């Protein structure tokens, strides 16, 4: 992250808050009530802030229905998570080192039936596998509704971070989604208010 970036300190604070949670978080699913809340930005910003604190972090785009991470990185989506799921090699081989300590893994080529790939045992094993080499795994996930529907994303990792956008996410929708996540038994780590005014 650019040291001069005006949002750097905000991500640093988010990272600190996350690390100070009572239960240690090794893998987290980052989702939002609707598309456009800025999940991928938060994943990268948070990953960079954690890496700056000396953590080894990997951000994995597992939103196979709507890949976005590669666009943010300005990289083609030729290889990534799906390549790893097919090949059997470690996920580390399919990412891009953004800054020291931060690896970003795009979805890779998306074929039909992306849900089946995320729901496969192999996906959970891949994430578990990379946890051995990284301190924190951040999963850039689809919208919350899909996360709730996915047994893998909703229950196989340490918790869910919900991103809401200050001017795009309606309060009603956010409240409903939060209730749905809690009703589904998801461990809701907390909320990130993205796109807020500078005064906030």
């Amino acid at each position, binding site marked *: *992250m*650019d040291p001069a*970036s*005006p*949002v750097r300190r*905000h*991500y640093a*604070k*988010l990272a600190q*808050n*996350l690390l100070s949670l009572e239960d240690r978080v090794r893998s987290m699913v980052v989702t939002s009530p609707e598309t456009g809340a*800025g999940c991928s*930005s*938060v994943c*990268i*910003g*948070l990953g*960079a802030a954690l890496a700056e604190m000396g953590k080894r972090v990997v951000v994995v785009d597992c939103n196979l229905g709507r890949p976005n991470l590669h666009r*943010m990185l300005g990289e083609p989506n030729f290889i990534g998570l799906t390549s790893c799921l097919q090949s059997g090699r470690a996920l580390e081989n399919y990412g891009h080192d*953004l*800054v020291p300590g931060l690896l970003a893994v795009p979805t890779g080529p998306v074929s039909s039936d992306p849900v089946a790939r995320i729901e496969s045992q192999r996906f959970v094993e891949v994430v578990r596998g990379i946890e051995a080499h990284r301190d924190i795994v951040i999963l850039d996930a689809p919208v919350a509704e899909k996360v709730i529907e996915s047994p893998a994303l909703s229950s196989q990792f340490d918790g869910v*971070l*919900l991103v*809401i956008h*200050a*001017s*795009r*996410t*309606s*309060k*009603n929708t*956010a*409240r409903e989604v*939060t209730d749905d996540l809690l009703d589904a038994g998801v461990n*809701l*780590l*907390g*909320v*990130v*208010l*993205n*796109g*807020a*005014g*500078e005064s*906030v």
Partner: protein
Amino acid sequence: MISIIVLSLLIVGLTFALLRERAYTAEAIVLVEPQQEVPAEDMEPFLRDVTGAVTSSEDFIVDVRRKAGWKGTPEEFARRLDVQSLVTSDGTPTIRVRFESVDAEEAARTANAYAALFTERVDLLNDRQLAGGALAADARVASKASLPDRPSGAGPLFYVAGAIVAGMLIGGGMALLLENRARSWRDARDAELTLRAPVLGVIPEYPSAEEV
């Protein structure tokens, strides 16, 4: 939001209460009794027939206005006049005549004029129809309208209280609705209270190019 709406309605209510003319209502009672025995269940139709026979005549209401010395329009007169035909609990067919006016004396005078003319017309109909033997009713003024000593209707306090209650209900409802539909989160506290979940971070709006 609530306070703005309450204040607006309070001003409207207060203005209405202060500008609204305080009217007086006078009431006269006319009893209509059949000359022959009428079964209780037929009393209402009987009263309706008598009332209809009297008031359906076009010149009746014109004569009432003239007798009362009414200076306004016929529409205004009709708006202020309230005539009810009813059979009381003891089975007495009754005509209740009410007239509302800003002038107490005019209110009483007009109610009495209507009542008096009504009885006169019933007598007239009796005389005319005796030959045919159809209608047989006696009408008499049982209670003349007296001069009302205070204005009728609700006072200013009623409207002010109504405005406050309505303002709170409407304002509260609108505030709740707007809050639910709002796409604007004030701050982390707002998000925590709304979602009942901890806010771990607040990221300000920024151009994406600045991000990494």
